[in-house]
């Protein structure tokens, strides 16, 4: 090792302050630039909208039993996942329900409003059940208390034209009392 050099003479206060200021600012710019660029890119998902929220054909009205017992139908649509495009893929499921001799169809999303599991139909007990944390719902989507689910099953807009059932497929935020559609 070289011999230790004597302590350098103290610089004058003004120059020293400027040097410190410049070092901090310069160093900050140097290190924060990649951080800022990284954060910018990391926030990209916030810009992405879900491909859904459109009226999608589900089935013919004749396929919806007219006895008030819902039936599950897959929701088929084109889907993109970042760079991959899927043609006509199942993207979710709906329950359609029709009262006797009625032409109006009710549609419920099969996604549980509690935390997003998949609600199943219990035909025997005439109710819906979610297998994850035991929320139950009546056949018209109402809450059976006590229930972890903060709200009733999510209804979806549904229209029947020339015997064809179309549903406006949407995803909603889970775990909150209000039904708010995801953008």
């Amino acid at each position, binding site marked *: 090792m070289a011999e230790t050099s004597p302590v350098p003479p103290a610089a004058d206060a003004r120059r020293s302050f400027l040097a410190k200021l410049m070092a901090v600012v310069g160093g900050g710019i140097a290190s924060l630039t990649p951080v800022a660029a990284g954060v910018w890119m990391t926030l990209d*998902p916030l810009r992405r909208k*879900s491909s859904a929220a459109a009226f999608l054909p589900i*089935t013919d009205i004749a396929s919806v039993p007219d006895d008030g017992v819902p039936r599950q139908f897959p929701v088929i649509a084109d889907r993109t996942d970042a760079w991959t495009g899927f043609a006509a893929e199942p993207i979710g499921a709906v329950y359609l329900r029709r009262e006797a001799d009625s032409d109006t169809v009710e549609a419920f999303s099969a996604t549980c409003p509690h935390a997003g599991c998949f609600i199943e139909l219990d035909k025997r007990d005439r109710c819906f059940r979610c*297998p994850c944390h035991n929320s139950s719902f009546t056949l018209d989507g109402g809450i059976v208390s*006590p229930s972890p689910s903060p709200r009733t099953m999510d209804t979806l807009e549904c229209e029947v034209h020339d015997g064809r059932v179309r549903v406006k497929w949407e995803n909603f935020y889970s*775990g909150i*009392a209000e039904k708010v559609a*995801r953008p």
Partner: protein
Amino acid sequence: MSDASSPRRGLVTRLADFFDDRTGYRALVHEALYERVPGGARWRYVWGSTLVFAFMTQVITGLVLWSSYSASAQTAWESVYYIQHEMTGGWLVRGLHHVMAQAMVVLLALHLMQVVIDGAYRAPREVNFWLGLILMKLVLGMALTGYLLPWDQKGYWATRVATNLAGLVPLVGPSLQQLVVGGPDYGHHTLTRFFALHAGFLPGTLIAFLAIHLALFRKHGLCAKQPQTKPDSMFWPDQVLKDVVAMLAVLAVVMGVILLPAVRAMLEGRPVVPGELGAELGAPADPSQPYAAARPEWYFLFLFQFLKVFEGWGADGEFLGAIVVPGAVLGMMFLMPFLGRWKLGHRFNVLFTLAILVGAGLLTAMALREDYAAAWSDKEAFADVEQLIEETENDPEKIAAALGNDTARIAEFRERVHQLDAIRRSEAFFAAVEQAEVDAHRAIELAGRPERIPPGGALELIRTDPLSQGPLLFAQHCGSCHAHVDPAAPEAAEAVAVSSAANLYGFGSAAWARGLLDPNQVVSPAYFGNTAHAEGDMVSYVTDDMTDADTWTAEQIEAVAVALAADAAVFSDEPLDAAVVEQGRALMADEDRCGSCHHAGENETDLGAAPDLVGWGSREWLIGIISDPNHERFYPDTNDRMPSFGVAEEGGVAPLSSEQIALLANWLRGEWYRGE
């Protein structure tokens, strides 16, 4: 120090001197090893070292796994499959990584407990205690993110629930969730982000904090357990030896968990399949196929169960259970060093930590008890409840009336319904777990085909596999009328009795055809008993004409059954005698016998009166009847209730696509890939 130029010293010593002169490493090593352990080495000090060992194991196995893993929705499961089932030693490295992660959680709890009981969080060690808490969070974060990476059903659905909970954080929740998930839906970017967190950000941060944690530990020295009964000793070799023994014990347990199934298989004389050791791999994640048994890893089960405690609190409960209470508990732990200044505070800290651990243990037990309730409950005791629900269609008013509007009885009934529900949920859980095992096994079998996995991923394999899709399609579209159950199975009688159309199990086989031609069976619900055909010509022909031994000998009937099976040519192990087939074909075409109604062989009988026997039961024939049973080849006038699954109404869509119909036909015929 000896003279550096002395020629007697060996090359190694000289080299060591060279580096020591320039780095001073000897002093560093000395400092690292010759730490004083006040009161002598003790077993209770080993937990920190075992954690470092566990973490090192995770780093090493993790880097190796990383070198073979590919994070995307079409390659994650596939690459993990390849690691687990095809790469040499893949099962061992993955098994070590998986089991050691769980060991780490246990060791964390032990380390925390030991630090709190020994009061090692008190001044001047507060900062190091906080660092420890942060390290704990980082480890749990790695556990959480790692669970998703194989992209199997289990990890996918459990993590979906977990990330939905992130959406509950006030104000920023929804954005936070979208950032974590990498977009509005689960997909490639969920995997890439989780992977970056799991293998980059979290361990990187952990290493930085761990370095400070260890440096501070050395700075403060060991917090010795009082009273010190033995003389001080040195870290090396006394404590190191104890640490090493503890590490080996941890390793032995981990290896035991990995290898136990192999030992069991060997004892039972079964072959050992390395791919089935270590960490399991479920079926590939399918966003359209829910997994009803989605549960987090066991060490997160208590949080999962905790959410249920707030059942009935609605959205507030969720918020409390998932965010507020866990946050408060953690906040409390950060305050422990301040409380610990008082003797009472220290006692409180110890009790608090114990209570948290015991509480978590209890919640875990509760979660398991709920899931496995059906294993020890007696469902028979609830037969009357089931019956009343069925009779009243679960209508509250009717139930109340049936119970004589007696409030006490109604309340009791409600309570029992509750218990029954619990059993049923547990049964559903069992069924889902069993199904998941079947699916996983099938996915792995398909992935191992000589054709390998298509570029679209393993999900594509499953969606085009008759064995996987057939039962689902059948249940959804055919099962409301038809049964599909092995007549030899114990549940067959009941399933067949409630069905309203033929049991299609083994359709096209000689056994099935024999039943059709058996006067006792043809009128049973397994064939035409519960259909309009019970009154039809076929049934009367079989029960009247074919029972007349002058027109039909037993041998002739057998020949027809065999000939039918020969035309169908479904998958079956029963060898068919060519001569008998010829005899049967002739009988079928005979216009005084089957041929009087059926078009068969070369006969001139018109189609329409009865189903076409040419190619009966063949793939093409089945596709035809599923698509359109009203076609003249099948039942143009006498179709009972069967919908035309392949025919679209004006401007509509057909209930089943041609691919789905082909899948059903192949499944009914037993045509699917069979591994060795």
